[in-house]
Structures are given as C-alpha cells and as structure tokens.
C-alpha cells in the first residue's frame, strides 16, 4: 500500500532526496495512524488498561480502601485448593455448555420458523425479541417469584391440578436450582440467537432452494446442504457471543440465588464479586476473574478456528 504515491514526485525529485518530514507528510500510513489514534486510545483506556490492572491486582493482596503489595501467585495458590472455587468453575462450564446448546437448538428452530411466510410476520418477529429487551434484573426478579419456595406459580398450578403434593424446591435443591437458572438464562438468550440466525437465513438466495427442489431434494437435504453451510459463519459469530455472554453471566444468578443453595449456582463471575467487592478482597476477586480469561480464550478459539476456517470461505468446496 505504501507504494501508492499521491504527492507530486516531480518537485520531490527536484529537491533531491525527500526529507523525512516530507516523506511522512505524504505517507498514507502515517496519516492512517493518526486517524486510528482516537479509536486506539479509547480501546486502551477502557479495555486494555482495566484488563491489565485486573491481572496485576490478582498478583497483589489489595483490599478495598488500601493499596496491595505484590504477593506473586499466592492468590492462585489459595484458589488452587479451594473447593468452592472449583465448584464455581464446574458450575460455570456446566451452565455455559448446557445453556448454549439449548439456546442454539431453540434459536435455530425459531429462526427457521420465522423465516417462513406467515401472517403478521413483522409483529411476531418483534414479539420474539421481548425477553431480550426486558432488563435482565427485571426478568430475574420475575423468575425469582416464579421459583419462590412458598409462592411459586408453577408449584401452585401443579398442586391445584392435583399433579404434585408439595411445593417444588426450585432454588433450594442443588440440581433444581441449576436447572432453574439455566432455564431462565435460556429464556433470556434465545431471542438473540434466533434473530441473528434469522438475519443470516435471509441472505441465503431463494434460487438455491429452487434448484434443489427441482433436483428433488428433501427438506432435510435442503437444510443440510444449503442452509447449514451458508449459515456457518453466522453461527460461529452468534455462538461465540452467546458463549461469552453466558460464561460471564452475573446479574441473573445474583438476583436469583446469590450463588446458593450451598454454592451450587455460584459462577466464577458471582464468586469473584462476592470475594472481591462484598468481602473486600480485591486481589482474590481479581484472581478469580483472571482465571476466567483462559476459558474465554479457549471458547473463542474453538469457535473461530473450528468453524470459520472452512475451505468454502476461500471459494472452494466444503468437504
């Protein structure tokens, strides 16, 4: 790119070798650097710096209200044999995995449904977005009532129908609690997946389907060999985001269970908040938060390397 010349070479030649300044003045790269600077400064100030600070903090014993001193890996050593920390790692992975898979399945199904022609199409599509629009904390509070140990509408209805005899202990039993928070997360996350995939579906040219139909392809074959491959890049993006959001989820858990019962729903993010902010051990909280980074990097790597580097993207067949 730098070889493109825009200034007047005649004059430059007349003055012999151009000075550094005049070369800079005419360099597009140099100008581009300046144009990028505001954006870069923004990113460094609001993303890179806090991230770096958080990682640094995890190597100190900083507490709220006083500076920490460098203590090396001590925070991590304590975490290493901390059963609650490992439980939170397990919970986070379970939560992310199960919720993401369900969100993907329901989201894709919903997108395929919404992609058909039907009456009130626009309205139905916007209704699907509602769970996504409601502020998380509000929906969490609604779920909190739905799951209440004494006043749950679900338990109440089932009892009235004569199907069960006692209230279901939604948030008081470890497995029920995990299932309940995953359900709430799925409810909230499906619209994002569905609408984004729908956008992707609409870029698929109808002529491909026509040709396939003429060739006698079944519904499944059309999905498998046209829709799915063309949708893959969108799926990669959507699922990367979905996994990241789920992995770092905080509000829903905090409003619903505070990580209880007996830490069965503590995610790394909520544990980090409890240790770092609520009990004031910033260093330890930062260590837990930092421990999330490798998992997140792995999740991104899987999505991008696994799904994006397909041959068809370079124009050849997808094998």
């Amino acid at each position, binding site marked *: 790119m730098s070889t493109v010349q825009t200034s007047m070479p005649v004059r430059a030649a007349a003055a012999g070798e151009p000075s550094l300044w005049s070369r800079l003045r005419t360099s597009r790269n140099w100008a581009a650097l300046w144009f990028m600077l505001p954006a870069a400064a923004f990113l460094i100030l609001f993303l890179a710096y806090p991230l770096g600070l958080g990682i640094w903090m995890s190597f100190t014993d900083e*507490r709220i209200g006083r500076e920490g001193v460098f203590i090396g890996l001590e925070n991590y050593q304590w975490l290493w044999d901390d*059963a609650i920390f490992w439980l939170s790692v397990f919970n986070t992975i379970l939560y992310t995995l199960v919720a993401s898979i369900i969100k993907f399945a329901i989201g894709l199904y919903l997108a395929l449904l919404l992609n058909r022609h039907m009456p009130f199409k626009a309205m139905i599509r916007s209704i699907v977005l509602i769970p996504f629009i409601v502020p998380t904390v509000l929906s969490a509070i609604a779920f909190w009532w739905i799951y209440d140990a004494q006043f749950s509408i679900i338990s109440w209805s089932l009892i009235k129908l004569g199907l069960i005899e006692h209230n279901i202990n939604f948030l*008081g039993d470890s497995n029920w*609690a995990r299932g309940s928070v995953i359900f709430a997360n799925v409810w909230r996350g499906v619209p994002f997946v569905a609408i984004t995939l729908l956008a992707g579906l609409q870029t698929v040219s109808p002529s491909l389907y026509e040709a396939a139909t003429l060739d006698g392809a079944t519904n499944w074959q059309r999905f498998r060999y046209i829709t799915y491959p063309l949708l893959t890049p969108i799926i990669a993006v959507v699922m990367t985001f979905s996994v990241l959001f789920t992995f770092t989820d905080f509000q829903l858990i905090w409003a619903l269970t505070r990580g*209880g*019962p*007996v830490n069965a729903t503590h995610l790394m993010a909520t544990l980090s908040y*409890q240790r770092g*902010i609520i009990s004031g*051990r910033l260093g330890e909280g930062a260590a837990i938060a930092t421990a999330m980074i490798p998992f997140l990097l792995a999740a991104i790597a899987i999505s991008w390397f696994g799904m994006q580097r397909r041959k068809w993207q370079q124009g050849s067949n997808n094998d």
Partner: protein
Amino acid sequence: MNKFTTDRRSLLKGGAGLLAAAATMSGDELLGYAKAWAQTSPWKPEPGAKINLLRWKRFVEAEDVAFMKIVDAFQKANNVTINVSNESYDDIQPKASVAANTGQGLDMVWGLYSLPFLFPSKCVDVTDVADYLGQKCGGWTDSGKAYGMLNGKWIGIPVAATGGLVNYRVAAAEKAGHKEFPKDLAGFADLVKGMNKNGTPAGMALGHASGDANGWLHWALWAHGGKMIDKNNKVVINSPETAKSLEYVKGLYENFVPGTASWNDSSNNKAFLAGQLHLTTNGISIYVTAKKENPQIAEDMNHAHLPPGIDGKTRELHLGFPILIFTFSKYPQTCKAFTAFMLEPDQFNPWIEAAQGYLSHFLLGYDKNPVWTADPKTTPYRSVAQSASTPAGEAQMSENAAAAIADFVLVDMYANYCTGREDTKTAMASAERAAKRIFR
C-alpha cells in the same frame, strides 16, 4: 367477626398513640431546638458544607420519615446541605467500598454490621463524638463499644441495631406444647419439631441472606461453645463444639418448611405474613407490617430472644448499623455534629419510637423509651444490644471478621452439612480452610 373488629380498633388506637408520641416535637419546635443545639455544640459545621450521606433503605416507613425530619432540622439550623441517598442492604457495601477506594462521592455512610472495619484507615476518628454521647446518654453497651472501636479509637458510631429475634405464632407454639417460649436449646429444638408435626412449620434462612442467615447461625455456633476464631484471631472452627452445633442445626433444618436453603433476607417475611411460616428469626418488621396489613397475624404473634447456650449465656449476632465519616470528606466537623445531633435524646427518642422496635439502641439511657413498654411485644427488642456480639465473637472486631461474614463462611458450612452435601468433618474442614484464607 365482632371480636375481630374490636381487636383491629384497639390496634389502630395503639398505632395512633405511637404516631402521636412520635410527633410530640413539631417541625418548628425541632428547628428551634436544633438552632439552640448548634450554638452549644462542640462541633462547628463548616459554612456552606454539602454532605453526601448514604444510608440503607428503610424497612419501616415512619422510621424514614422521622430520620428525614432530623436531617431537615439540622440542615436549616446550620445552613448546610445533606444529600441523603438510599440503597438496599446488599448495595450499601459495594457503594461504600467504591467511595472508600476512589476517595470521593460520599462523606458519610450509615451501613450494616462492621462496615467501618472493612476500611478502618478511611474512617475519621470519632472518639470525641462517642465520648460525648456516652456521657450524655447513659453509656455504651459492650456490644456498642465492640462495634465502634478499633485499638481504643472509635472509627464509627453504632447508631442502632435491628435485632434478629425469634418471631413466632403464639397459637402454633402452644399447640406444640410450649405455653412459654423455651428457655434452653433442647426446648427450642422440641418446639420446632412439634410445630412441624402439627403442620405449622418454622423456618430460618440457610441461603446467602446476609442478615437472617448469618444471625441465627452465629447464635447456633456460639450457643454450643463453638468459635470461628479465638481471642488472638486464630481459626478454631474445626472443633467438637462446632460438630455439636452442626448436629443441632441439622435437627432444626429437617423440621423446617422446605426451601430455606434458598432463602434470602426477605423470604421469611413474605412466608410469615402469608401465614405459611410460624416461627423464624427476624427484625420487628414482620410485626410492624402485620399490624397494618394482617391484624390477625399481629395479634397471634410474639417475639423472644433465642435460647441461651449450654453455658447459660445468650449471645446473638444482630444487625448493627454503624455510621462512619470518610477521611476524605471536606466537612468532618459537619459530619461529626450531625452524628451527635442524631443521637441526642430529643432526636433519637422520637426516631426509635417511629421505628416501632426496628431500631434498638446501643446507648443504655434509651432503655427508658416508652416504645419498649407500650406494646409488650416489642419489649424483647429493648435488650438487643445487651445480648449482641460482633461477628468476631471474643476477638477484636476486624476487617477479616467482616470479610468472613460477607463471604458466608459459616452459613456455607451449615448449609453444606444440612443439605447433605458434606459430612461433619468435611464441612468443618472447608470452613476452616475458608476462614484461614481470610485470617491469613
């Protein structure tokens, strides 16, 4: 039906009496008094001072109204501004912590438990205010001193506490064979068991409920002679005494209404007021609400201290409300003056009356306030400060003890054992490890 109406009427009358008492000092009178007070006060507010005060969000409306009246009178008399913002229990600490860390935003925080001990170096020394109030109002209780002092210096003023006492339905307790509230651990366990058998179960929080769960579980530990730390801050949670208390709590838990492991601080209030829960530990807020909205329940309920431990002493963990002044405040004199003003008998008396038992005092002189005797059901809350211990127990209250409370070390230990996730040894070992991590 007839009986019901008279009951309701007498209750209404009682309520009106309280209100009348709270309003003995009209706004103008209070202002006049405040002006006179300002003349003689040892702290002279900085001219034009602007204070940002953060407090916990009220549970009893009349309490808040009375508090704002005090603020208003102080503002007018001293020509200063006090901005009061409210946050729920759970949000006070993070906000205060951020202010402490960044050194701006707030001048004073009226928070929970041991807030000043989370950042003692950021709290103004208020020994002069404490001494002044102690002299004037009958002296501080031991628990007051424990909640306010660090190394002989007051770093916060314990304004009041809300007692975590037993709230129970009288008829249900009587039916379970206890005409009088039990006076020992065995009797209490028997009561809980009997109530469950009759289908009128008890329930106390075992979830991450900072107030309710921490409160009664610390009582259970102390009552059996167990301790998180000894006098020298050494972790001694892993002990036969703790094992006994685990057993005891499990016995209670098995007779609780289902779901207590998921309860937060408001769960028991809701269930009690809906008539589904017949015994719990709580502040007086259930009773105050019941008087207004559910007089039958108010009529049939009463309060009591948790029974004394095996050594015959009652030690409870109540929710203390200390107020602190940040060192970075530009107006420390104003803050000190306000703190002292707030706790003067002329302000504090109507205020605790308005709180209807929700605020129990740390200054012994306030035992005489009529709120504690007008309705015998509030009387147990008078002696909250006498039976109170700080989360540190026998040790000096500290940053670490505050962190252990916030990290639910004890609550998790009991919940782990009661729900069958861990056996006695493992539950104690995990708690020991968690405590050692904090007290390292």
